[in-house]
């Protein structure tokens, strides 16, 4: 027997029987816990995506192994089309993993070999980053699953790049953030947040406060990095909230000269650093006074009034979580940052919640503060359709807990392993939510433009009807989704094309419909601008 044949036989003996790998596209919006189900109910090895230049677009798939354990390699190809190529480096495959003690599922690079135990099904995400200069058109590629050179399964990727340029939403959207300790990590984190569509960062823990010195250089370095990363919205500077309940209470009560003068001194140092760098900054002055009962709420009101009178040059907010707290503090704040609220231990709020149309109207009418959300949920719907709906009521920002809380503590949206950023699914879905928001805003802008130019009446009416339906499909009350099991949209997507929902997923089916209206209006608007155009509808 030749050595070569012997080697082949030995390899066959080691690897056992031929493997049967089951690959099928799944819904990346599926909840945790269950065995991954095929997207649309029917197993498919063909994933259909659409995206705009500059967008990141995910698709998920599952690998099931019904026979003996096996190690596989997973590789992605470039996506090729008549208009060009999207390189394979822009097609990133990552495995879904649950990290004990972290409490959230994350995406990790699978490395050169993925172990598939017998009888197991593992989930993966493919995220395509469409380069900004990609030409519209169809692009195709594959994700291959091989073992020792043998092709075991293949996922076909069909991507349509749309002729749409999305823009940053005119809202502050982001997460609380801890000082990472070095400038390189800071730059990486900020770039990652921008790549996830975030428009604001809310520094909170581990940032230096100039209480015992006048050193504001760390804040200055943050501002520099923030601007370099391309953030344009004001910084939501949450760290100063620590002054009122942690760092300065030893100086005296809030109505003592010792406390007040120290507070003014520290805040003016911080303000000087921000203003010298031309960086608009929203300073958070307090945190959830509702948790201290009604007495604490009254204290919050007095404190906000003090800051209003003695530091009016600061744009201010406070993280608030109860009705009475908001109504006492907000008249003295620039922005009222609210979550859905609770009653307080002494039930002083009597069941009133905050993240709803009724309260937001009252807040704006009675206090003049601009509503932002703080901690009303991460993920696609909270950042997307729900925020879009609430922005129509005047909500202008949303800051969530938490990008990098402690060293990989529960609540973080990012898991950091040896400097490598491993996003949670919630974080990735938050980006999808912001993309939904961008599509919706893009369509609204086109409708306005068409109406202003008095062209494309039919297309604008159709788009406006869709936007109206979508508006009505979102209940403007966060409690409906967290306390009353309301689904989005309320009709359970019955109005969608079932075939489209089966191939794209429900949210993307809506997004696709929005995109088609955008493109229809763009055709009219472009046509009107051309020398031969005449404003035809």
């Amino acid at each position, binding site marked *: 027997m030749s050595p070569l044949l012997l080697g082949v036989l030995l390899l066959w003996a080691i690897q056992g029987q031929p493997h049967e790998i089951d690959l099928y596209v799944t819904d990346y919006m599926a909840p945790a816990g269950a065995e991954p189900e095929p997207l649309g109910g029917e197993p498919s090895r063909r994933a259909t995506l659409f995206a705009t230049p500059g967008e990141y677009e995910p698709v998920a798939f599952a690998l099931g192994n019904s026979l003996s354990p096996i190690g596989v390699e997973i590789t992605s190809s470039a996506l090729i089309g008549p208009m060009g190529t999207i390189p394979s480096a822009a097609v990133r495959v990552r495995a879904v993993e649950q990290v004990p003690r972290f409490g959230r599922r994350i995406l990790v690079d699978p490395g050169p070999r993925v172990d598939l135990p017998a009888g197991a099904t593992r989930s993966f995400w493919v995220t395509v980053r469409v380069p900004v200069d990609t030409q519209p058109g169809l692009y195709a590629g594959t994700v291959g699953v091989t073992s020792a050179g043998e092709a075991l399964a293949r996922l076909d990727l069909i991507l349509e790049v749309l002729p749409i340029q999305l823009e940053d939403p*005119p809202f502050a959207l982001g997460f609380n953030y801890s000082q990472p300790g070095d400038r390189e990590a800071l730059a990486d984190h900020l770039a990652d947040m921008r790549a996830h569509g975030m428009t604001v960062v809310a520094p909170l823990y581990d940032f230096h406060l100039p*209480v*015992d010195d006048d050193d504001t250089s760390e804040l200055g370095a943050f501002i520099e990095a923030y601007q370099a990363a391309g953030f344009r919205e*004001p910084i939501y500077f949450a760290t100063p909230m620590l002054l009122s309940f*942690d*760092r*300065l*209470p*030893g*100086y*005296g*009560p*809030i*109505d*003592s*000269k*010792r*406390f*007040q003068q*120290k507070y*003014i001194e520290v805040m003016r140092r911080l303000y000087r650093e921000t*203003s010298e760098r031309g960086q*608009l900054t*929203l300073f958070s002055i307090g945190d959830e006074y509702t*948790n*201290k*009962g009604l*007495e*604490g709420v*009254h*204290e919050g009101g*007095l404190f906000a*009034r*003090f800051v*209003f*009178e*003695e530091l*009016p*040059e*600061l*744009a201010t907010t406070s993280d608030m979580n109860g009705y009475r707290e908001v109504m006492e503090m907000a008249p003295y704040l*620039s*922005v009222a940052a609210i979550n859905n609220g609770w009653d*307080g*231990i*002494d039930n002083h709020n009597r069941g009133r919640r905050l993240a709803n149309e009724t309260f937001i109207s009252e807040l*704006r009418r009675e206090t*003049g*503060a*601009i509503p932002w959300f703080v901690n009303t949920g991460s993920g696609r719907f909270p950042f997307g359709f729900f925020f879009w709906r609430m922005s129509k009521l005047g909500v*202008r920002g949303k800051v969530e807990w938490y990008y990098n809380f402690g060293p990989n503590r529960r609540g973080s949206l990012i898991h950091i392993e040896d400097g490598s950023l491993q996003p949670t699914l919630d974080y990735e879905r938050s980006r999808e939510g912001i993309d939904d928001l961008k599509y919706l805003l893009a369509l609204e802008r086109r409708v306005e433009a068409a109406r202003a130019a008095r062209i494309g009446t039919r297309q604008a009416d159709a788009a406006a009807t869709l936007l109206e339906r979508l508006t009505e499909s979102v209940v403007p009350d966060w409690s409906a989704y967290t306390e009353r099991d309301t689904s989005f949209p309320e009709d359970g997507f019955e109005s969608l094309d079932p075939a489209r929902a089966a191939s794209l997923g429900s949210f993307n089916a809506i997004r696709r419909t929005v995109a088609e209206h955008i493109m229809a209006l763009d055709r009219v608007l472009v046509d009107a601008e051309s020398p031969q155009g005449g404003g035809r509808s």
Partner: protein
Amino acid sequence: MRAVLCGLTIVVLAPGLSAQARTELTADLWSRERVQSALEAIAEHKAAGLLSEAAYQRRRDMLLQRLEGTFSPTMLAVDSPPDLIQNGGFEAVNRNTRADGSRWRWWQGWRWEGEYEMHWEDRGRHVRSGRYSARITSTGPPGRVSVFTPILPATSDSGVYRFSVWAKGSGENELFVGFDAGASGSVRKRVGREWERIDVRGRVRSGAAGFRIYLNSTGTGTIWVDDATLIPDPRP
């Protein structure tokens, strides 16, 4: 004159003195340039969507009054209580707290080892003054649990402070009262069944900007504490 409102100690000066002090302090804080600069800042905030029209107008009106010298600050304090301890009688409780942390406003708390429970005490025989005292009960193996102050500023010229607290106990208790985190001075003792005053003199270490005071329970049994005060000691 002093009064307590919502757990805050209000220092009230004689009306004439108070008004004069407030005028002087306001003049120190509010130069004309600062008012002008603040007016520019709020206009920028409004343009950037950080201020509504109504909120902008309120700030603007206030700043214009400051320019004219007609604004009367309602919150600016001109004095401070000499006692650095707030809620020294443990009267302001926060029921929205865990039993192994501080249950009292202003005070902080932590359990390092052992099993303990902290609670506001309202049984009259265990309360020295007011409605409540602070009760620390051992519920298992001994270790260390603490109620402690926030960081206190080192403002005393002499660098020396006098802390006193009333305490009583039962069982094999051990009360350890100590200056820490920037200052030194401590007392460790078993407290008896009757109220007794524990006095500790603390000295701030050179260069320290602040310090804390810890009320530790390190034994078993129960300790009650009430009526804590901290005053700078002019004697070095």
